């Protein structure tokens, strides 16, 4: 389970990045966290590349090509879960 502070540190920056850099939306990220980026046309193929770069820089996790699947990169919730798993792996490793 994730607390509010944790959510602010992961979900919120993802929402803001997408709203500002992929949707060019002045109204923020107006989708639920489980909305599919691909089905809702929120993110295109360039957007996926930008998301990969954002995640690597902002959360200091390494993303390999095999990580870039719909299971990890298709919604705010999935991406946040992926970041948490990677951060936990880093902490253990």
């Amino acid at each position, binding site marked *: 389970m994730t607390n509010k502070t944790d959510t602010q540190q992961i979900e919120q920056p993802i929402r803001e990045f997408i709203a500002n850099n992929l949707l060019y939306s002045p109204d923020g990220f107006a989708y639920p966290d489980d909305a599919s980026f691909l089905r809702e046309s929120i993110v295109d*193929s360039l957007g996926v*590349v930008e998301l990969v770069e954002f995640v690597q820089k902002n959360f200091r996790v390494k993303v390999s090509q095999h990580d*870039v699947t719909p299971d990890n*990169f298709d919604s705010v919730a999935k991406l946040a879960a992926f970041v948490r798993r990677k951060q936990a792996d880093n902490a253990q490793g």
Partner: protein
Amino acid sequence: MQFTKKALNLDPAGETNRIVEFLQQSVRRSMRRSGGVVGISGGIDSAIVLALAVRAFGPQKVVAVMMPDKDSDPISEKLARELAASYGVEPILEDITDALEGFDCYRRRDDAIRRVFPQYDAAKGYKAKIVLPQDLLEAGTLNVFSVAIIAPDGREETRPLPPREMLEIVAASNLKQRSRMSTLYFHAEARQYAVIGTANKNEHGQGFFVKYGDGGADIQPIAHLFKTQIYQLARYLGVIEGIQKRTPTTDTYSAPCDQQEFFYRLPFETLDLLWCALDHNVPIGEVAKVMGLSEIQVQRAFDDITRKQRTTEFLRLQPPMMEAPKAVST
């Protein structure tokens, strides 16, 4: 529909007649042009378009233009010449290298590649290409491009492309297709001919074309045909064997790069049937059974096709225009 592995088989004679009529009707009656200009690349798509145009207008009313640049494989020009000769057309050679130097195409592209691979130096014999992961059915990875370089000693190295570099490489490379489009329109306008496009359904539908580049044409006579159907027509139209047997290539980057690794991620025989099934809403279980795939593999392919269609919609859109303003009474 009854979905089988033969779902894409067509009647080549009937389809040829249908396309020839479409060309004659559109170019002569609608556009009031008497002939056509076709860019021939040494590939299968432009080969059948040339064959169809010759049937529609006669060899005297068709101009075939070869437009290589310094990155093109020399075999492309050789095959294009053989093709044109086989249909009685004298081809025109327009080397676009100087035009591309004028646009600074190569420097802009190579600067971006060097930011990923500092050792990359085209003058020393390094070659480069852009590729997608090839594990679509197994892993369902998303379309994240990588750049691969091949050193003069043959060693190949691949790294993911950051967004800025990806955009710059693609934008620079697209100058090639746009230079070719301008060249084709020169030859068309000088003769009052139409530019005949060579995009097939795979390219047009999934956005594997350059807007106002190879997508810039007056008519697209094969954009309704899958690649595997193009090969059926090629056999019927007697396209030279060297082109029929050639692996479809982008012929855009200096390193050899086939269309599967650059964009489609699946062999055409698989991709086309899956896309046909998707178009006809064939249930996934039935598709999996006919094609010998698992349902999850079929779903991954469906998702990839749908994503590419959706994310390239912008390429197929005409520029939006507004209605005339309402008159005001002052």
